[in-house]
C-alpha cells in the first residue's frame, strides 16, 4: 500500500541519464549531443503516443460533458418552455432572477445542504468505525470485508425501495401505526438513513486505505509507552489519516449534494423534501421548462465547483491523481 512514487523511479527516462559518463573529453560533447537528440526524439514519440492514447477519452468527455454544459448555459439564458415552443427567445439572466428570488429554490438548497452535512457526518463516524473493524478485526476479517461491500454494490433505487416499504404504514416492519414518510422531519431522517446506509462502505474503504499507511511500529511504540487506544487514535492515526479523510469527505460531500435517487423513490420530493437535483428534474421533465431547468443545472454546477474549491484550497485536500498529492 505504499505510494507508487516510493517504489518506482518517478523521473523515468530523462535526458540527463542517457548522457554518457566516463567518456573522454573529446567524445563527451559529441556523445551528449547524440544522446540529447536521441532523447528528444524519444520524448517526441512519447509525447505523441501520450496524446494519441488520451485523445479518445478526452474527446468523449468533452463531447458528452463539456459541450452539453455549454449548451445548458446557453439555454439558461433563453426562455425555453416546451409547452410554449413558439415563445423561444433570448432573455438574459431572467431565468436566474426567477430562480434566485424563488423561496422554493432556496428551500431546496437548504434541504440539500442539511442532507449533505448530516449524512456526511454520520457516514464519517460510522465509516471510520467500519474501517477500523475491517482493518483491525482479529476474527472474521474476510467476512466483514465481504459483507460490508453489499451496501456499496446494491443499486441505490433497490435499497431506497427497501427503506420505503419498511416505513410504509401497514406493509413496513419499522412503521408500526405511524406513517413516517408523510411528514417532513421523519421523511428527511429516512432519506438520510438510506443515504448513510448505502455509502458507509465507500467511506470506510477509502479510510481503510489510509489506515494501511499508518506505521504499525509507531502504534506499537505508543502502546508500550502507555498510550491508550483512544490516545493512539487521536494523536497518531487521525493525523496520518488526514489526506485519505479529506479525499473521502470531498467525494462524499459532492455525491451527497447531488442526491436524487433516494429522494425520488422515498418521497418524490413531497412534504418539502426536494433537493436541488429533484426540483431541477421536476422543472425539466415534469414542467418541461428547459430554460429554468437549465439555469438550475448551471447553479448546481457552480455550487458543486465551490464545494470542490473549498475542499481543495481551504482544507488542502489533494485532488486524487495529482502527482504532488500530499501522500508520500
Amino acid at each position, binding site marked *: 500500500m505504499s505510494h507508487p512514487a516510493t517504489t518506482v523511479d518517478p523521473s523515468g527516462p530523462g535526458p540527463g541519464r542517457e548522457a554518457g559518463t566516463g567518456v573522454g573529453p573529446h567524445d563527451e560533447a559529441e556523445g551528449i549531443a547524440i544522446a540529447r537528440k536521441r532523447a528528444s526524439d524519444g520524448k517526441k514519440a512519447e509525447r505523441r503516443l501520450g496524446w494519441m492514447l*488520451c485523445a479518445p*477519452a478526452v474527446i468523449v468527455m468533452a463531447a458528452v460533458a463539456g459541450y452539453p454544459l455549454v449548451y445548458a448555459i446557453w439555454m439558461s439564458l433563453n426562455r425555453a418552455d416546451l409547452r410554449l415552443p413558439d415563445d423561444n427567445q433570448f432573455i438574459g439572466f431572467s431565468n436566474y432572477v426567477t430562480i434566485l428570488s424563488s423561496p422554493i429554490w432556496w428551500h431546496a438548497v437548504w434541504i440539500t445542504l442539511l442532507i449533505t452535512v448530516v449524512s456526511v457526518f454520520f457516514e464519517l463516524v460510522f465509516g471510520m468505525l467500519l474501517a477500523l473493524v475491517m482493518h483491525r478485526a482479529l476474527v472474521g476479517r474476510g467476512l466483514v470485508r465481504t459483507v460490508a461491500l453489499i451496501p456499496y454494490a446494491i443499486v441505490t433505487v433497490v435499497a431506497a425501495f427497501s427503506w420505503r416499504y419498511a416505513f410504509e404504514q401497514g406493509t413496513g416492519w419499522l412503521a408500526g401505526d405511524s406513517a413516517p414518510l408523510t411528514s417532513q422531519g421523519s421523511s428527511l431522517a429516512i432519506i438520510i438513513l438510506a443515504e448513510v446506509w448505502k455509502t458507509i*462502505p465507500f467511506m470506510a474503504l477509502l479510510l481503510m486505505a489510509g489506515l494501511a499507511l499508518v506505521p504499525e511500529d509507531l502504534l506499537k511504540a505508543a502502546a508500550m509507552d502507555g498510550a491508550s487506544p483512544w490516545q493512539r487514535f487521536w494523536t497518531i492515526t487521525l493525523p496520518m489519516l488526514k489526506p*485519505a479523510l479529506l479525499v*473521502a469527505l470531498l467525494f462524499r460531500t459532492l455525491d451527497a449534494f447531488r442526491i*436524487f435517487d433516494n429522494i425520488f423513490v422515498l418521497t418524490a420530493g413531497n412534504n418539502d423534501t426536494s433537493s436541488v437535483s429533484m426540483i431541477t428534474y421536476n422543472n425539466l421533465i415534469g414542467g418541461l421548462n428547459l430554460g429554468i431547468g437549465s439555469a438550475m443545472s448551471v447553479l448546481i454546477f457552480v455550487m458543486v465547483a465551490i464545494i470542490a474549491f473549498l475542499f481543495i484550497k481551504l482544507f488542502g485536500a489533494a485532488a*486524487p491523481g495529482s502527482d504532488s498529492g500530499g*501522500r508520500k
Partner: protein
Amino acid sequence: MTTLAELNSTPGKKAAWWVADIAVVIYALIPVIWTISLSLKTPGNINDGKYLPTGGMSFESYQAIFKDTVFTRALINSIGICLISTAIALLLGVFAAYAIARLDFPGKKLMIMMSLLVAMFPQIALITPLFKIETAIGIFDTWPGLIIPYVTFALPLAIYTLSAFFREIPWELEKAAKMDGATPFQAFKDVIAPLALPGVFTTAILVFISCWNDFLYALSLTSTSAARTVPAAMSYFTGATTYEVPVGPITAAAVVITIPVLVLVLLFQRRIVAGLTNGAVKG
C-alpha cells in the same frame, strides 16, 4: 512487554471483535433480507408488517415479473447497456490510463483535471442538453442514448483505477522490451497488457456496478421500454397504480437485479477492495 497484537488477542477482545463483526453483518443485511422477505410473501400477507415471511411464502411475484415483458425487456436492456458501456469505457480508459501512468507528456495534468471535473460533475446538469441533443440526432430512448452518458461518467473511475494499477507494474520490463527493439506500442501490447489484466478486470467490475446503479439517465433519457433499464422500469411499476403499490413485483425485481452484483462482490471481494482503495487514495 507485549505487542499490540497480543494486547488485542485476549479472549475478551476476541469476543468484542465478534460482536463488532456481527454488528456489521446486521447493518449490511437488514434491508437485503427485508427485500427478499417482501418478494417472497404471498399477496395475502404482504401487508402484515412482519420482517420475515412467516405467514407463508410463494414465488408468485417472481412468476409475475418474468411473465411481464416490461420487466424482461428492462433486464435485457440493463445487461446489454451496462456490458457495452463497461467494454467501451475500459477500452478508452486503458489507453488514457497507460499514458497517464507511464508516459511523460504536456497536458497530462490537464487530462487528470478533466477527469476529476467529470467525476464531480452534477449529472442532473446534463439531462436537458442531452435530451435535446439526443432527440435531435435520433438516439433518444435507444441503447446508444444511454451508453454514451454511461461511458462518459464511467471514464474518470476507469482512468483513476486503471492508472493506479498500471503504476504498480514494474517499469523495468517495459524498458527491457524496448531494448529488445519493441516499439512503445508493442511494449504496451505484449508486456504491459498481460500484467495489467487483473487491474483491468477489477476496474471492469467497478465500472459495471456504477452503470448498473444509474437511475437518473435511465429515467430521463428513455420514454418507452425500448431502452429503459430495471431501476427506471421499477419506478414505473409504482406509477401504474397510485393507491395499490405493487410491492411484490417491485421487490422481486429488486432481488433479481441485486443477484448479479452480489455474486460479483462475493467472488471478487479482494479485488474490489483493492480497486476502490487504489483508485481513490493512490490515484
